[in-house]
């Protein structure tokens, strides 16, 4: 309840039970104030002007880079701002990926979000590489032996895996995968779109070579995300988009390029968004990510126990490797109809394929309903959902 008060939407829309945070989170007032204040008092383009306002904007933007990087246990020079996690993953595909050769393999898993799958299909198409994939077990955990086997076979250059499934809630053992990948000579890209907002993270020790995240899922504004690379790795990569900011010297027919991270940020960046994102991560830091995760774990158990009691089959594992995401179905009725029933009671859940069609096919589901939690979620939200589901069961019976 205390945390909910920090998020204006809950007073603006009393009665809202928002359980779609895995799609995007609501914003705390400190983030909205940071946005507003920046535009009112310090806005100018960055890296360009030598007047005071531009200097302030540049300091705010580069300061935000340092704060956001530090939140993940990384250095500012290793963080490239992007629009979202999707663009961060594509950036790797179109820069580091240019170095792939025909026959090279990219290892993905059946639980990947389309954003961590299509860029690799596109890369494979451009380079004559191929996609190999790891399955899940009946609990929705990754088939680690399968991963080990694929890596041992020797052709894998990149492992691209999510740290947290947006459908199953599974938290994957990234450090273990990193070790296997590196032993096999492959790099590891971690899709942190979900985990960034939930898990205490220290990229310096996680073992990922690339880490992609979105600001809008962790209380930050839309329009910004980032790619964090292992120190030194960005240096070796060719540029991505071309334009202002990313150059050193330009002639009509050729150019030389700036050092990272600027090399990968063409054109005017999402300046105010970076500043507001930095405010979002300092807000989360104040709440304490480790405490939030503990609270989420408890609330997740309450949710899963409640679904069990209602007899609603729910996908994904039980245990410490399970985040606050619950995908389920009410037998005999389509997830969309269920979601509408809940919506009429002010309960926002998602219904559909959750941008994970291969996983839905693997689960044998055309669609599921999904409830997901963030820092502001509380027992009242979960209980409202559970009692509405009990009603729905009766209604659709």
């Amino acid at each position, binding site marked *: 309840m205390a945390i909910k008060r920090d998020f204006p939407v809950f007073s603006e829309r009393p009665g809202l039970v928002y359980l779609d945070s895995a799609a995007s989170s609501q914003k705390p007032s400190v983030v909205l104030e940071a946005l507003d204040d920046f535009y009112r008092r310090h806005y100018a383009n960055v890296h360009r002007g030598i007047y005071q306002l531009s200097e302030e904007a540049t300091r705010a933007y580069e300061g935000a880079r340092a704060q956001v990087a530090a939140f993940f246990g990384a250095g500012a020079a290793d963080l490239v701002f992007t629009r979202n996690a999707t663009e961060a993953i594509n950036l790797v595909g179109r820069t580091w990926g240019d170095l792939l050769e025909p026959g090279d393999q990219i290892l993905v898993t059946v639980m990947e979000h389309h954003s961590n799958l299509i860029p690799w299909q596109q890369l494979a198409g451009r380079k004559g590489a191929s996609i190999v994939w790891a399955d899940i077990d009946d609990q929705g955990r990754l088939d680690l032996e399968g991963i080990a086997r694929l890596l041992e076979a020797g052709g894998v250059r990149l492992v691209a895996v999510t740290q947290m499934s947006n459908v199953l809630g599974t938290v994957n053992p990234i450090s273990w995968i990193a070790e296997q990948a590196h032993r096999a000579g492959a790099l590891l890209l971690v899709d942190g779109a979900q985990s960034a907002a939930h898990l205490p993270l220290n990229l310096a020790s996680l073992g990922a070579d690339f880490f992609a995240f979105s600001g809008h899922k962790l209380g930050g504004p839309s329009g910004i995300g980032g790619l964090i690379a292992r120190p030194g790795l960005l240096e070796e990569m060719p540029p991505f988009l071309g334009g202002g900011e990313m150059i050193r010297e330009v002639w009509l027919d050729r150019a030389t390029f700036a050092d990272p991270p600027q090399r990968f940020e063409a054109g005017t960046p999402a300046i105010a968004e970076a500043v507001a994102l930095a405010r979002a991560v300092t807000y989360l830091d104040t709440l304490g990510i480790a405490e939030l995760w503990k609270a989420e774990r408890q609330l997740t158990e309450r949710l899963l126990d409640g679904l069990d009691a209602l007899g609603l089959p729910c996908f994904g594992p039980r245990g410490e490797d399970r985040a606050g995401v619950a995908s389920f179905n009410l037998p005999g009725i*389509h997830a969309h109809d269920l979601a*509408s029933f809940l919506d*009429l009671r002010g309960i926002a859940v998602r219904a559909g394929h959750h941008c994970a069609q291969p996983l839905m096919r693997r689960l044998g589901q055309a669609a599921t309903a999904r409830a997901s939690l963030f820092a502001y979620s509380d027992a009242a939200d979960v209980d409202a959902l559970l009692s509405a589901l009990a009603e729905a069961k009766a209604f659709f019976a």
Partner: protein
Amino acid sequence: MSLLENLYREIVLDHYRHPRHYGPLEGAERFPGQNPSCGDHLVLYLDRQGDGPLRLAFEAEGCAISQASASLMADLLTGTSADRAAELARAFIATLHGGSVPEELGDLAAFSTLAQLPARIPCALLPWTTLLSALSPDRPAADPAAP
């Protein structure tokens, strides 16, 4: 209970569970329709019998609203002329977008309460837009119907 829940209880769930005109239709052309944003799939079987009265059937995978809409549509339009079917389709589509509700739509008139759930309007529309493009002169090549 809201009007919309009434719609579900009195019409939608019945047609969802016991769809009329469900399954392939011999001698008919086959028109697939899809709602990419939610994944609903539908196949409309349409037999124009030359210029005679229409015969319709469908198969679908999707939510109750789109299936009930398809079932009611097939019920209403079977035996009408192509022109009349197109006219009724336009009337139904207008209803969903806040137009007046003509009596001739029968139970389908109740779908106007979807104004409360605008995100579901595409579900109700899918069978009808599939039909309109099947009836249009520059319609896409239909697959031959499975026997």
